[in-house]
């Protein structure tokens, strides 16, 4: 059994999610190959060679693969997928984009966003925003699987450099091209890989207070900043802050929820965090039902006190 992990990268370095997907691949078992597809991505391919437990890095280099566009990447994956029992990727905006395309071209089902490997052909995934889990057994010859990164630990350490195999270029489909990319600039850790996340909800009352109260706390803890959908919809922060079913799923060591009531769709995005702290003035807020430590009170007083005490 040989598995292909399709790595997310920016042509220079690998995304943190790759090591989480590797752990899922190791749980399935078998020889692991990594695909690096991009343009000017030799540095990413080199970095992949020393990932732990990787037997081969397949490297595809072409201008048509530069921006990770779904159409061209899916054609490439489809071309080589018959060599593999499994094709794995992170269930990120990247993996969600191209993986179903490759699965359809292979005429196989995709198992999305798995949180558990039950057997090499059997996987568990959350449905209904995580209210329910479902276990599926795949009957397909190639299993296309996307992995929820936070459900698997990052594979640690380095391995002996794996051989690098260059793949032939794929003619670009010309169906789509990137016109603009605007990434939020931030000195903070990325939300999905941060060890500590400070998240704010509508209880903050305004974008100004969100910033004034939560940024100093996040600075003290070297934390990423997150938000509930209610805070995003109220315009306090941009959408890429959103934690929840329709935003990002996080599982840091410490999650501090400030002024967040705890709607089901928010809980779906953070309840796998190791330690949860909730600060809310409403003692009956549902967030307290998942919090390890709850503090009832006025966040305008509590948050500055907490920042000062750290």
């Amino acid at each position, binding site marked *: 059994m040989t598995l292909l992990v399709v790595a997310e990268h920016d042509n220079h370095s690998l995304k943190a999610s790759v090591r989480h997907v590797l752990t899922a691949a190791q749980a399935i078992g078998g020889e692991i190959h990594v695909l690096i597809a991009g343009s000017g991505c030799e540095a990413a391919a080199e970095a992949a060679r020393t990932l732990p437990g990787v037997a081969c890095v397949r490297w595809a280099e072409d201008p048509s693969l530069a*921006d990770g*566009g*779904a159409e061209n990447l*899916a054609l490439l994956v489809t071309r080589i997928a018959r060599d593999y029992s499994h094709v794995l990727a992170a269930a990120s*905006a*990247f993996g*969600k*984009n191209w993986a*179903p*395309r*490759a*699965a*359809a071209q292979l005429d*196989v*089902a*995709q*198992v*999305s*966003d798995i949180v558990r490997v039950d057997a090499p052909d*059997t996987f568990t995934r*959350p*449905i*209904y925003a*995580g209210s*329910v*889990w*479902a*276990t*599926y*057994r795949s*009957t397909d010859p190639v299993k296309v699987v996307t992995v929820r990164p936070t459900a698997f630990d990052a594979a640690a350490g380095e391995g002996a450099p794996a051989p690098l195999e260059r793949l032939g270029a794929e003619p670009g489909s*010309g*169906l*789509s*091209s*990137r*016109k*603009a*990319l605007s*990434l*939020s600039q931030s000195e903070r850790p990325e939300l999905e890989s941060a060890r*500590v996340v400070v998240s704010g909800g509508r209880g903050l009352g305004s974008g100004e207070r969100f910033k004034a109260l939560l940024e100093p706390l996040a600075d003290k803890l070297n934390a990423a900043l997150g938000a509930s959908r209610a805070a995003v919809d109220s315009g306090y922060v941009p*959408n*890429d802050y959103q934690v929840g*079913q*329709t935003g990002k799923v996080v599982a840091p*060591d410490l999650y501090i929820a400030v002024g967040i009531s705890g709607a089901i769709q928010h809980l779906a995005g953070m309840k796998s965090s190791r*330690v*949860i*702290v909730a600060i809310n003035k409403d003692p009956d807020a549902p967030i*307290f039902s*998942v*919090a*390890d*430590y*709850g*503090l009832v009170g006025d966040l305008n007083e509590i948050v500055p*006190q*907490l920042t000062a*005490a750290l």
Partner: protein
Amino acid sequence: MKILVPVKRVLDYNIKARPKADGTGVELAGLKMSMNPFDEIAMEAALRLKEAGQATEIVAVSCGPAASQETLRTALALGADRAVLVQCEGELEPLAVAKLLRAVTLREQPGLVLCGKQAIDDDANQTGQMLSALMGWAQATFASRIELQGASEALVTREIDGGLETLSIRLPAVITTDLRLNEPRYATLPNIMKAKKKPLDTLTPAELEVDTTPHLNLVQVFEPPQRQGGIRVSDVAELVGKLKNEAKVI
């Protein structure tokens, strides 16, 4: 330009899903069903394109049981011109839905397919991408802004990890909608009445010559491990003490 909008009938988003006692599925009997919220956003996007004079006809399509007619009537009440039901019993996997939609797309020849990025029941996030692949078309997923540039190109801004990406895609194409694209309208009573008279055709997988046999076997549906609520602390000093000495996370 004709726009095809696939819509799915799902358990209403206000209702908490629970597994059936025997673990063979999710309990749906007697519960309120609604149009998938992401599909409402797709329908709204189609309606706005039509209102802007950039689309001529909106066709809603649903693959599912006979009761999906209700969802299609909702789409018609919102402003779709016609509806197509591909009537199927039993579980349909995203790949099967994509194959059915491909057959409908070949019949209807739309210039654009607009669908929700995922359904809130199975959360698969696959069908739009699969349909696009089966058609050999371009795709733009997770759209937060759509601008048609005539009949052969669209500019689509997508919500990706850490920011936004704008793609130029060749039409026809499949675009899947994210939350921030728009706020869907409600159907008005006069439009609900009018919708009852709009055409709704019914097809079957056999007529479309599509095999919908599942590729996955459902082993079990169950409640996930529950997180236990913890304790209340009385002040910041106690909280910091617990985080340092008990949880050891700071």
